[in-house]
């Protein structure tokens, strides 16, 4: 896909407003209530190979709401060959659901035929840039749409990295025509752990390429923070969102909540807080502080297993 074509396709993507991550525990509430001004982000891998209830639910949601597909296993940065079976399955799902766009992460999730089920950081070098750019082009050609890539949360920085993450993503977008998903919680988490300035990160970020933003909660351990997606958005992240939302010209914004997930209405209420910051309100200190404990596991993909025993079993004995 030529860069100019991808650029044109990106420019034509809709501004979806506010959305929520589609999670199992909310299925009934989403489909039983009156349609709202909302959109949903479905985790691609939860539905790609589904022959059961998840795929049927996604169909029903997509009939009522705009949907985007967000992947966690494309492994665009891996040195393993691209998984053609995975891509074929993703393309079938996209043809079936007709999402507004398809996204994944700037990361690798496995190598040598193994999968860590984590979003592992890339060394930010010219070698990595050439490697990822070549693979983004292949994926875009296969999916016949621009790929949207997200900045991951990270806890290490490679010693031999030569590029900043914003510069890497800017160059990648320019070379491939891909779009970007700016996760402002990930910006905060990565910058806090690296001891760098998240505002400087945003200043350097190519906001003109941002199609979507993510909001989420993280856990603060004092010495470091972990991207847990298990609590409300913290004040520092709302402030980054306020700045980034204006700079992106109002990119579609989505709240992720993946552990200790509250009821649908509570998630919606957390999401709607974004409207204040979209209107330019500054953030009061201490907003959305949450004292709940947790085991501090980063949670990019841990919610992908359904609780089959609890929800779908009957004994005919």
């Amino acid at each position, binding site marked *: 896909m030529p860069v100019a074509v991808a650029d044109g396709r990106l420019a034509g993507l809709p501004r979806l407003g506010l959305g929520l991550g589609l999670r199992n525990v909310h299925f009934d509430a989403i489909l039983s209530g009156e349609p709202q001004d909302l959109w949903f982000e479905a985790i691609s*891998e939860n539905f*790609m*190979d*589904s*022959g*059961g*209830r*998840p795929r*049927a639910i996604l169909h029903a949601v997509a009939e009522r709401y705009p949907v985007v597909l967000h992947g966690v296993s494309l*492994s665009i940065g*891996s*040195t393993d060959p691209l*998984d053609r079976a*995975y891509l074929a399955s993703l393309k079938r799902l996209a043809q079936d659901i007709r999402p507004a766009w398809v996204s994944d992460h700037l990361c690798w*999730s*496995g*190598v*040598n035929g*193994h*999968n*860590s*089920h*984590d979003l*592992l950081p890339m*060394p930010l*070098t010219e*070698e*990595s840039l050439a490697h990822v750019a070549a693979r983004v082009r292949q994926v875009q050609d296969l999916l016949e749409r621009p790929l949207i890539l997200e900045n991951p949360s*990270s*806890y*290490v*920085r*490679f*010693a*031999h*990295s030569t590029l900043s993450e914003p510069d890497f993503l800017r160059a990648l977008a320019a070379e491939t025509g891909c779009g970007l998903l700016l996760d402002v919680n990930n910006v905060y988490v990565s910058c*806090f*752990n*690296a*001891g760098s300035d998240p505002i400087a990160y945003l200043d350097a970020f190519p906001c003109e390429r941002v199609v979507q933003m993510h909001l989420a909660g993280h856990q603060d351990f004092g*010495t*470091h923070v*972990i991207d847990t997606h298990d609590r409300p958005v913290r004040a520092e992240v709302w402030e980054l969102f306020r700045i980034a939302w204006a700079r992106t010209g109002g990119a579609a914004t989505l709240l992720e909540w993946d552990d200790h997930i509250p009821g649908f209405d509570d998630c919606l209420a957390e999401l709607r807080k974004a409207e204040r910051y979209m209107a330019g309100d500054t953030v009061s200190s201490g907003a959305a502080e949450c004292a709940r404990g947790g085991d501090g*596991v*980063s949670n990019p*993909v*841990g919610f*992908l*297993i*359904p*609780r*089959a*025993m*609890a929800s*779908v*079993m*009957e*004994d*005919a*004995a």
Partner: protein
Amino acid sequence: MSALADMQSRMHAALIDPRADPAAQALFARDGRLGAAGGLAIYQRGYFLRIAACMREQFPALCHALGRALFDDFVADYIRDCPPERHTLYDLGRRFADWMEARRPDGDAPEAWVDFMIDLARFEYAAFTMFDAEGNEGNVFATSDTADSALRLQPAFALGRYRFPVASYYHAVRRGEAPLLPAPEPCHVALVRRDYITRTVPLSAPHYTFLSAMLAGSDVDAALARISARFGIDPMMARDMWCGAAGSRDRWIEWGLFVAVDAGPVKDL
């Protein structure tokens, strides 16, 4: 191997076995709040905890039977020997029962409780897989009026044969009970999903043989002939087990075991 490939291999090896390459932390910058070792440790810890949590969701009854600490120990050894291969976490437990069989903790002196754990793992993964398997929802199921010659098993169907009553143990855990480890007792079970509800159906040995034959492509008549031959049952009695007053036919049709097809050539096994 490129520098990028080498780096990824080393970092991944350090996730699978943190003791394998103590020098792996040299890959990372030492500045920042966490330092190289602290940052790597977050990935190492998250790798195991995330997979263990997913395995507990796939094997809740086995986790109950072993206790969480011992279950997690098994998982740690399992994923070290069998690192995840596929993009879907649904696949995590696919090799677990076979791995337990190959790495039985009782070694050369087999103990019944290990056999039970292996069978329970096999049953639980089959039950978990049924949750999202290809099914027949949205299509027509057979009815009591469907001719026997047109009955075929639907796609979301599986059979299992076990040395212990694993299905009843599973459901006791599901009800929040604290069942004792059961004594050995041969157990045949069907799993079938209709309207996205998976049902476990206990079976007699002849029923299991009948459904095995149908799963292999036989029609009802051929499957009945199979159990007559296998168990020395009079053909009339076999048919009565199928569609007599206490037969299984209507009940199984109601539970969605069968779809109706245009009766064509079938395999006579």
